[in-house]
């Protein structure tokens, strides 16, 4: 029996609305957790595993987020874990929870990610660290995160004929998608002209091509199929894959935060890192890209969304722009991408965002995504990438 057959049910999901609220990450996380438990109809006392997504910006409590959330909700004797994998933190936390459930070691897991994020560029920790690649890329080259996204965007332009207008259209689409999303921070239509009139951060990307930093929280309650049956959650959404694979050597696509790639050795690997994340997820779920009805992907930049469509096999390499231009990635199109509004409407709250993708797909597959519903969605995939070989793709099936 494959993991997909056994399955783990997504019993409940919850969020704290994203924005700059001036509260602590613990308050955001507890809000999302209580909402997820309420959504599941599962009492806190039934939770026998808590997994927290670590945040590096909130000191010791943030480093041990699992226990911080567990204490805030009231010690209940549950098992505990804390995950950190940069932008893939939430997915790694889900992976831990799902694995323990599949192993029969727990029945009900609460996974929480929450953060507060300062305005401006994400930057490395303070101090001189000449052996830390994340510090070195800033010190020696001035290489910010948007500069990496801009490198990928420029390649799309020079190799595939993408234009800054195409990138802006991704923002236009996602800003429309997010209009009715109560958890989105930005709920305002944006035009191509608005994007192109905003300041260039890293050529060819403008300020409005790049996602903001934000505060936010998301939580997911996973339960065993047996628990779901006993509690009448039979029609729930199932998590049929969590892929957290590393790159395969040699990793020949420039990866944040590194200054260089591995040597190709004259042969390209069969799959790029991002492709392999999706491939592993499809394999585990027993599905293919043709089965996908809806995708939530990391639009850290508008152009990156186009890369992800190809990495996920939703279209051939170099064809994402034509799908976008034809409206096929909009709600109502063949393969809607980021119906939540994506990071374009949410902003980055690192340990929460991979969980937020799962929340959105859950609402989509249940038909509860009011004002942004993808009609008849039964299979959804998420994708994201963190630092240093972390990344993930999650497949949800109804």
């Amino acid at each position, binding site marked *: 029996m494959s993991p997909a057959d056994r399955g783990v049910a997504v019993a409940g999901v919850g969020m704290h609305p994203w924005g700059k609220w001036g509260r602590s990450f613990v308050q955001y996380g507890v809000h999302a957790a209580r909402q997820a438990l309420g959504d599941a109809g599962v009492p806190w006392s039934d939770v026998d595993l808590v997994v927290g997504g670590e945040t590096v910006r909130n000191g010791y409590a943030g480093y041990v987020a699992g226990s911080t959330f567990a204490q805030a909700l009231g010690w209940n004797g549950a098992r505990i874990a804390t995950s950190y994998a940069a932008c893939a933190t939430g997915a790694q936390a889900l992976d831990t929870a799902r694995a323990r459930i599949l192993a029969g070691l727990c029945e009900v897991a609460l996974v929480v990610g929450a953060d507060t994020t300062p305005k401006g560029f994400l930057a490395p920790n303070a101090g001189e660290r000449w052996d830390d690649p994340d510090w070195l890329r800033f010190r020696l080259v*001035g290489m910010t995160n948007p500069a990496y996204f801009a490198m990928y965007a420029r390649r799309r332009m020079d190799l595939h004929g993408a234009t800054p207008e195409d990138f802006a259209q991704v923002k236009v689409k996602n800003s429309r998608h997010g209009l009715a999303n109560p958890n989105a921070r930005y709920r305002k239509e944006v035009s191509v002209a608005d994007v192109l009139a905003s300041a260039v951060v890293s050529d060819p990307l403008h300020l409005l091509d790049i996602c903001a930093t934000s505060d936010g929280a998301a939580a997911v309650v996973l339960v065993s199929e047996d628990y779901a049956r006993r509690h009448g959650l039979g029609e729930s959404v199932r998590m049929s894959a969590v892929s957290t694979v590393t790159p395969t050597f040699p990793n020949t696509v420039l990866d944040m935060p590194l200054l260089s790639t591995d040597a190709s050795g004259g042969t390209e690997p069969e799959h790029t890192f991002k492709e392999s994340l999706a491939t592993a997820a499809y394999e585990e779920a027993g599905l293919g890209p043709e089965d996908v009805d809806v995708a939530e992907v990391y639009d850290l930049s508008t152009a990156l969304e186009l890369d992800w469509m190809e990495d996920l096999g939703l279209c051939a390499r170099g064809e994402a722009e034509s799908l976008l231009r034809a409206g096929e990635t909009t709600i109502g199109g063949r393969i809607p991408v980021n119906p939540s509004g994506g990071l374009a409407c949410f902003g980055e709250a690192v340990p929460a965002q991979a969980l937020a993708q799962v929340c959105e797909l859950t609402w989509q597959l249940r038909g509860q995504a009011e004002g942004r519903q993808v009609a008849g969605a039964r299979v959804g995939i998420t994708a994201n990438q963190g630092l240093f070989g972390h990344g993930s793709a999650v497949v949800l099936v109804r």
Partner: protein
Amino acid sequence: MSAPAIEGWFTTGPDPTLTGERCTTCATVYFPPTIAAAGYCRHPACEGEEFERVPLSRRGRVWSYTDAQYQPPPPYPAPDPFEPFAIAAVELPEGIVVLGQVARGYGVDDLRVGAEAELVVEPEAVGDALVWKWLPLGSGHVTELGEEADQ
């Protein structure tokens, strides 16, 4: 002569090169040269622990490029007032793509995916420590090198 901003990563002089490290067991070449200190070859099929320093090719093809029009946060040593700069990722014949700032006087209009670039060494924007940079070749652009870029 000023000192490199980071020791051992590149040579200076008229024909500077990046300094790679080659595994003596499987011949995989690495840059930056931090693998010998780490002690283990990163090739999954190799257990090599010995490395030799090798100069990397001075010329390669632009993999991609961009610029920084907003001031990067510390530890980037930004001049005051901030001066935007271009960045290129250049694929060397060894198959390694290496990031670097673009030589002073050149911007994104001088670059193209697939175009040739050559390694140069210039002072950093602040202070006189040296850093490796990529010089676009064949862009038709004539740079006005300041004295500070003249070593």
